[in-house]
């Protein structure tokens, strides 16, 4: 099969992949290690999944959706990722504060969770940046 996506289309797909990795990290860091047994906020999961769907649909269905709709999906996907990232960061601020403010009391597991989470942040940021660059493309598929 000949792929129809151009560079911007691949960036959109890459954004979806990074978002997926970030999501997995969010889920793992929220349910294992220091956070094991605690309730995970499901909203970022939901928003990220919808974002991934948008970011995959935009390049793969660009021909059917048309330029405007595909572009709108990129926009929606990015916004949802941005909101998810912000919620992810907000959920980890306590750990950051614990470790920075009184750096002698936290268990090692908390630091591990924070470090893993920061890796997750990075993937979300990469996903967002990729989607922004993709949005500057006129279209997502080759002529």
């Amino acid at each position, binding site marked *: 099969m000949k792929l129809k996506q151009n560079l911007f289309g691949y960036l959109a797909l890459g954004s979806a992949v990074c978002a997926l990795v970030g999501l997995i990290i969010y889920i793992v860091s929220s349910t294992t290690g220091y956070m094991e047994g605690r309730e995970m906020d499901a909203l970022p999961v939901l928003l990220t999944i919808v974002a991934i769907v948008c970011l995959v649909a935009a390049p793969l269905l660009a021909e059917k959706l048309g330029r*405007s709709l595909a572009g709108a999906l990129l926009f929606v996907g990015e*916004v949802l990722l941005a909101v998810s990232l*912000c919620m992810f960061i907000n959920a980890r*601020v306590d750990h950051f504060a*614990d470790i920075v*403010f009184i750096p002698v*009391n936290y268990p090692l597991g908390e630091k591990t969770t924070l470090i893993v989470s920061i890796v997750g942040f990075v993937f979300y940021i990469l996903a967002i940046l990729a989607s922004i660059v993709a949005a500057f493309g006129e279209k997502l598929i080759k002529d």
Partner: protein
Amino acid sequence: MKKAIKVLRGLSMISALALAGSITAGVIMEQYPTSLDQVFGTLSSQVVSEETSEADWMYQSKFKTIQEAVEGYKEFAIRESQETYALLKNQGNALPLSKTAKITLMGLRSYTPVYGNSAGSMPDKATLEQGQNEIFRAFEARGFQLNPSMLAAYESYCSTLTRQSGGFGAPAPEYKEISVTDDIPELSLSELRSFKSDFNKDYAAYSDAAIVVVGRPGGESKNYYPETMNKDDKAENDTVSGNVLGLSVEEREIIEEAKKNFDKVIVLVNSTNPMELGELENDKDIDAVMWIGYPGVYGFYGVADVLNGTVSPSAHLGDTFARNTAVNPSMVNFGDSTTWTNAADYKNGNVNTYLIQSEGIYSGYHYYETRYMDVVNGVSGAATAAAGTYTNADGTRSTKDGTWNYADEVVYPFGYGLSYTTFSQSLDSVKIMGDKKTAEVTVTVKNTGDTYSGKSVIQLYAQSPYTDYDKQNNVEKSAVQLMDYEKTKTLAPGDSQTITMQVDLSNLASYDYTKAKTYILDAGDYFFAIGENSHDALNNILAAQGKTTSNGMTDNGDAAKTYKWTWADFDDRTFSTSANGTAITNHLTEGDYAMDYNAFQPGAITYLTRSNWNGTYPKAWGGFTISGRLGELLDCDFIDIKTNDDVSAFKWGTNSGMKLYEMKGADWKDDRWATIVDQVTIAEFLNFAQKAFHNIAPIESVGYTGNNADDGPGGSDTHYFKEGTYQGKAYSEMSGYDESLGDYGTRVAPSPTNLAYAWNKELAFENGEIILGETSLILVLPIIIGPGANLHRHAYNGRGGEYYSEDPILSGYTCSAVVQGAQSKGCLVNIKHAAFNDQEINRSGVAVFQNEQQAREMELKNLRQAIEGNGKPASFVGDGSKDNTYTSGALGIMSSYNRIGAVPPSANKGVMVDIIRNEWGFKGYNVTDFTGVSLKASPKESILYGTTAFCGFGVSVDYWNEESFAKDADFCAAIKTDIKYILYALANSNAMNGVNSTTRTVQLMSTWRKLYTGLEIGFGITTGILVVGYLALEVLTLVRKQKEGK
């Protein structure tokens, strides 16, 4: 058009990202307003009252302007410091020096001494540096002339070092590279030469004395370990004992240089961890030794005042200074060596190590003096010691079985301290009251010297009989224990003063956890003795018992300084109830809250007994495995919340309209409490409880607007005089405000250990009044987290300088006096830590185990004095101006990081409820130490057992909501009481100062608020414009296409 669309689309997404980030930043910042204010020096809220009257200001500061405050703190700090330096040796009256003496300061610490703790109660940097109060300036200000070449050499070295930068709190005025505990930073002579080749050129010109300063840093989270020196890699750090608290090769080199070049050599000991000073005591070429601890930012004026005789030294050691600090029973179970074998199986992240303190009551002088007595009496095999359990004469640890010898173990006993003058003390009379609860003891002190005035300390010790009953039932007895103390006023030569002490005999009773399960008084002979120190007092008792140096005593005692009485009958009733009438029985010996490890593993632990010193000397209790109930408790989640109790009797959120300020000064029994407590909801309590990081959250239903709070025992860590106020008016708004003083802080006094070594209750009261109380008023910090009052179980707690002493009475009465002084100004103290924190190593998570006798007679006896408000100075009795003092105890505590037994300290019902709340009548505020509402604090168990707040960030347990607790009657009742504790403590503090019906909290636009608000508005507008533009162009394009299509 297409180009414009893609550009607008991309820019919209960037702007949307920035907007999301700004909103998130705002949300996060608003969760931590007080923390941000502390870091950035901003003010984000202010409590304002439209109008106030004098009556609204229950508590008055004595400092109306910034100048008065700074000067007042300085005056007090210098005056306090003068009484805290202990003269240990003064050969040939080497001291005092002439006021204009030309002296050479030697040793790295002579240029850059340890002014105070490196974290927790750090000395104020601005006051020291901007105020130019460093050691050399203070000495010169007092008239000493200092060798400039030596100063220049050390200055040159220090210019290569890095000044400590701020961590949380405030930066300590010290150099990072030398504020270490695993090294002994000192310069050898060759290193000195490399910084200044002619450093020694002015010896002759400044030869009145060489003053060598040796020191060790300390502070929160600092750890000292024994036997870490004498390794191959750093020979310059070698000490005689191999301990970091001994003198290193380099330090000895400097001392030798001093001895070689000066006729008079004085050594100042700049450390709050007891150092090994045997070499100095024995060296005839060292003329004087003075312990200065951590003098604080103004304290070297006081050091100079003592060195030059303006003031006679009057401090006494509050710890035993051993020849080898690592060779004693407490040190066998110390540090991080005892890890649970299966700690990793426990998921809450805070299960790591345990510490089984099987020395019992035998720590510090309780060990050394008791074993000495048994050696003199030739009993219990006291003189026989296994290899490693006694000290050789040269200070090294023994390597073969041998003989325990007091003179080899102790260099300076507890209570030791000299003066420039001499005193006589006579035990005039003793009256033991018929109810056995108090004794009236009268002592006359006379200055028998010719030249110098001075203050003298009366140290009253007691001995209770060690009987067959005790031996059969594991009741241990110290040969001597401090019962009370008083300090005279300054006595001129020939003057005398008579002091009568009302001695609390509940401190004499012993705790029998095996048979009677309460406090007992054995039948037999009891002794009171006064003495110059614990050893001297014991020798006096031994003399009264017919012993002399022929029996192996180190010196003959003076029986005239003792008083003997006999109680014919065994008594397990008099002290079987507490002062408030609560029955006292075992709470820490069996069950979930046991501190005795034998409760979890019967027969596992043998405690040290004086009936068999050598056979029961502690061993390192390693290799324990968690199982069964122990594991459930260690997992921090051991009480279930019920969901279907009848809770109809509990009312929440009622609308009675009462305000907290109406309860100012209200008694605990005031009928109105029930009404106002019912106004608070469970949700409101939980919200309050979770926000206690240097903060007192608002409780809107009772009109409480919230306040800031701060650490610590030495004054406010993060607020400065520029924020100072007097009765609601800012110093900075007053005419004549001196802006140059704005950065000065309140952390100016010597260390808490220094204060204890003054043995002066009145001085401690004044310390509490000013350092905590005035600070609380001036900076509007109703809660200051202090004083620190854990016992010095050994010499190796790196944070020991923030606590007082090894002895429960010296520590307890000092703490009590500080609390009374602080509370006289309305400061809501949080005494820390409750309880049993004696090392920084693994302080979070370490499970501390000890038998109930040790728990009650050492650490808890110490804390009880402050919580019950005991230890009133003799001079306050009959002084009308002091009638309102010591009428109630402390109103706040902070629990420790370490577990008490298996459970988090705040969840230990035995200590927190049965003993502290019930037996001692504590009715105040109880906060955890930086746990947040997290599993490691067992939050639900903690609130069930009287915890009112959690210091830290965030909530990470899923039951922290009203729905979880609302159907459990026990939790409902506990939360009701916790709410009353909070409101009662606040109503009886200066949180209500200036508060009336017009008081409200005004939110201010601090810099960080302006920042995120500006970003939100900016990016909001930008995003809006871009999105509208993008959509408009898309619509336009669509419309055009449709038109073209037609």
